[in-house]
């Protein structure tokens, strides 16, 4: 009896410790400085520049990820070809790659002295340490989050719906746009939200490949680091902003599956988030 009660108390203490440890730093951000001051600090030049750079680069990167990643994911999900597991592993590799490695790899590929640097030079384009570099770095580290979920969503589609569309006179492109895309939408939205969150928080690859120039390549994450020694309150304010954005995105991802009720007419599930 006592032993059972002890075990229950033990579980409770462990849960309390874990939650406390995870939440305390986040709460500390908001407690150290009054909320009014936090908002005021977000109006400083450094903060505004960082927010603008972050929004601009992340949105462009996100657009690129969606436009290129969606058809690529559909192709990978709907074809069986030799080396498919290898291709999927390649897509997932940046997920586990240390960001610093991603940064040096991007420099090696697109930097002035890199693989394609000569080509870019000839065209009069310099990539590294520009806003383009930020976009590339964000796209590089964030795209696997989207593509992976997009592949899983397309794979989960009931293939008889695709077949039905074809026999009803729709070609592959129309079938993709009118059947596959809307039915996979929930999974695609969840993937987009996750990759957006990852993109906003990007730090390591960006600082190596794009540097940290205020108003040009200094994103919010980089500004927090830069302001650490200069103005701790600005760093805190930017940190608080990212906490709120991250929490909002996470909540969004959790809510997406509940957005529309299931109207499946077939046994097999489709577009169920996380069904990889």
């Amino acid at each position, binding site marked *: 009896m006592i032993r059972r009660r002890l075990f229950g108390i033990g579980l409770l203490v462990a849960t309390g410790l874990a939650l406390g440890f995870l939440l305390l730093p986040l709460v500390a951000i908001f407690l150290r400085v009054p909320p009014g001051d936090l908002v005021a600090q977000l109006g400083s030049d450094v903060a505004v520049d960082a927010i603008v750079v972050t929004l601009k680069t992340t949105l462009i990167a996100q657009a690129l990820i969606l436009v290129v990643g969606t058809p690529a994911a559909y192709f990978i999900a709907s074809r069986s070809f030799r080396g498919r597991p290898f291709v999927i592993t390649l897509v997932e590799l940046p997920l586990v790659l240390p960001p610093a490695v991603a940064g040096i790899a991007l420099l090696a590929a697109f930097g002035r002295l890199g693989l394609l640097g000569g080509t870019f030079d000839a065209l009069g384009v310099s990539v590294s340490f520009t806003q383009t570099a930020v976009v590339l770095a964000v796209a590089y580290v964030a795209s696997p989050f989207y593509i992976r979920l997009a592949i899983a969503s397309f794979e989960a589609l009931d293939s*008889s719906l695709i*077949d039905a569309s074809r*026999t009803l006179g729709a070609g592959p492109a129309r079938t993709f746009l009118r059947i596959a895309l809307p039915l996979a939408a929930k999974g695609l939205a969840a993937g987009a939200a996750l990759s957006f969150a990852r993109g906003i928080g990007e730090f390591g690859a960006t600082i190596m490949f794009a540097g940290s120039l205020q108003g040009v390549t200094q994103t919010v994450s980089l500004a927090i680091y830069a302001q650490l020694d200069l103005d701790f309150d600005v760093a805190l304010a930017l940190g608080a902003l990212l906490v709120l954005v991250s929490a909002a995105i996470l909540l969004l991802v959790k809510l997406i599956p509940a957005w529309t009720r299931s109207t499946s007419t077939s046994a097999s599930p489709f577009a169920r988030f996380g069904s990889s």
Partner: protein
Amino acid sequence: MDSLDLDISLALRSFRLELALTVGRETYALVGPSGAGKTSVLRTVAGLVRPERGRIALDGRVLFDSTAGIDRQPEDRRVGFVFQEYALFPHMSVEQNVAYAGGTNVPEVLERFRIAHLAKARPGELSGGERQRVGLARALARKPDVLLLDEPLSALDTHTRANVRAELRSILDHLDLPVLLVTHDFQDAAALADRVAVLVEGRILQVGTAAALIAAPSDVFVASFTGANLLSGRALPGPDGLTQVTLADGNVVYSVDEMRGPVDVAFYPWEVSIARETPDDSALNHVRAPITSAVQIGNRVRIQVGALVAEVTTASVERLELEEGELVVATFKAAATRLVPRA
């Protein structure tokens, strides 16, 4: 001259699908156990699976020809396909599903299939029978040259099944199209189709009207598939020009079919009656065995007597006060007893 002509060869997982068939303006059913390759036949016609060799033509229009290198895309074949679970687009209303096919007069099609009142409903809100009508309406909205039905009744529960079957029959009767349907249920095939082909492991064993298959199954599998009782034994010429068959359990039965050697005796459950005493009639076969089970189906009772099944009226079971385990005599006419040669 509307007809579907097909002659194909395609390797499936454990056997080769190899068959030729011609479907005129009729309903042609492919029946067989699951995994016999039935659905693959439909998919080759629709262009969703490519045969390795062969030719598929619709009204003389070549859809596929391996030697000529012709393989039309599914969207160019003018084929109506009703999928097993109907494959209605769940994110579209009934109306949008039907309109997807690009037919000209959607309201008229909805009216014809009695689904006009469901126009705005999503497939998820429909009953099984309604889904099937939407599936049919959608497949026919484009005025295809052939209609393919994959297990049209298997997604339905037993209550709605009989109604939907009758309804489907009347729809098919009014179509002036070749209809190729596949099912694992011989009763469904018999109820819906003008001709039935029994497909086993990729090959057609027998083609004919359902009545012809029941009357003269060419093969033991066909006989068992049509629902006949099968008892194996050895045939010899018997008295009165009948063939005498000694069954494995020692019982002796007679048939009007002439045959010698190892045979299977085939007769239908509805030809069998049950009695307590052995009747004194040489034209009747009788097998004495205990009742092992009795299941009521509507106004009939399916009684398992030893190795055979009898279907009798509920009234006669009540009159005889039959109980499980009781020793009874199952009788059936020598004239209703078919002999099928055994390899």
